[in-house]
């Protein structure tokens, strides 16, 4: 049996979680909402993060717009995702939520715009 102390990163409450791993069975205490349990289970098996950055825009007064991975991606792939983002340029006009890149760095996750450029 293994015990791990984690800080939940789902919201700014930052609950202190204790995860007990007993073979396949993972129990979580210290969370104040269901997100905490999900986070802790994922964090000890398949840690994931949302990646945010910004990319240059062509054809707009707005120089750059911000982007994010639509959902979280495996933590180990953060820098692969960043490599793709660094090579990405978008064309105006672009709306919030528009897909900038499908399946970014083979994560199966879309890269979407979080700002608009007219």
């Amino acid at each position: 049996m293994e015990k791990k102390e984690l800080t939940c990163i789902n919201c700014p409450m930052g609950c202190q979680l204790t995860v007990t791993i007993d073979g396949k069975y993972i129990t979580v205490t210290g969370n104040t909402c269901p997100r905490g349990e999900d986070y802790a289970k994922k964090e000890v098996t398949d840690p994931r993060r949302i990646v945010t950055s910004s990319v240059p825009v062509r054809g707009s007064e707005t120089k750059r717009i911000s982007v994010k991975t639509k959902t979280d991606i495996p933590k180990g792939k953060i820098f692969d995702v960043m490599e793709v983002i660094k090579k990405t340029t978008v064309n105006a006009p672009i709306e919030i939520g528009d897909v900038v890149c499908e399946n970014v760095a083979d994560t199966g996750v879309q890269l979407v715009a979080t700002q608009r450029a007219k």
Partner: protein
Amino acid sequence: MYCRNVDIAIIGGGPAGLAAALAAREAGVQDVLILERDTKLGGILNQCIHNGFGLHTFKEELTGPEYAARFADRVIAEGIEYKLGTMVVDLSKDKTITAMNREDGMFTIKAKAVILAMGCRERPRGALGIPGFRPAGIFSAGTAQRFVNIEGIMPGKEVVILGSGDIGLIMARRMTLEGAKVKVVAELMPYSGGLKRNIVQCLNDYGIPLKLSHTVVDIKGKERVEGVTIAQVDAKNKPIPGTEEFYACDTLLLSCGLIPENELTTGAGIEMNPVTSGAVVDNSLETSIPGIYACGNVLHVHDLVDYVSEEAGNAGRNAAKFVLDAGREEAGSDPIIMKTGKGVRYTVPSKICREKVEKDVLVRFRVDNVYKDVKLGIFFDGELVRSVKKRTVAPGEMEELRIRKEELDKFPDVREITVGFAED
């Protein structure tokens, strides 16, 4: 110079100003004008491209620009008037605003009510007293954030960060993702000034060390930063000789606190709270000048924009009420004074006017140190009325308690309410 009249003028089009405007409109005031210095609405959120905003307000995790757009789009859809690129230079006691922009030149606005929503500024190097030359390569964390996220320019390659405020932590991750090497985050205090989640996902995820009770004692380099010396400090925050460590770097980012931007407020002669550097307000968020309200980071620095929006909504509703009840009777009885008890640095509001109590009174405050297993108590004239247990409290995380209307009604003669730790 032209002059116009408006019902409610809002100074600042960031999260506080936008939420205040929407609430004022919803409460029935048509004539609302937002004055914004920048070229777009949304304020600082436009450069806060990371996620984690809006969990309380929208029950989903948004980035700063997305959160800002939710409010800005509604303001535009509602047809609320706003002026961009507009700098307010003066606010007077009689609620006359002097402002300027390229289209209108200099102009004045006579408002029935004013909402202060100017936000805050970062504490600059000059206010920190770090010895050494003044080379290029020293930025506030927010300036670096603007460079990287909006301009697409990296301020440097090897970075040391002084101060563990949230923007500093966010920038430690951001600079790392963009290929810089963040060598260390030094924090003067024995605890971090930022949110716990940011320590985890911005520092721990990337193996960036956080050195508590450490500060920068020297900056090397004359034209450009070549390195900084960091030393441990004692309980009185004095550097301990022999603990100095040199870090070669070309960039020093400062994340050493935020200061509400209140030049207009003090210029109008509004009573200030020396602890928050914001105005003294009552439970309707009204300042010492009737009809002038304050909300958001200009009132006290918040950790969460969700709370800014909520507070600003209250300011907007109360300002609308002030306009719609024109000629209302002045408050009859003296207000209840809010005091800080053991462990508490300040409270917002600073006083409670009974006439304005509609439902529970939300009191927000910060503690003065990190404490574990404490009871936060509400005391009426020294008597404990109620307490709430907390596993941990820290200065970097704002706390709140609600004083219930029934409690206030039950004690009609209470003069002072104190928020502070309760003994067992």
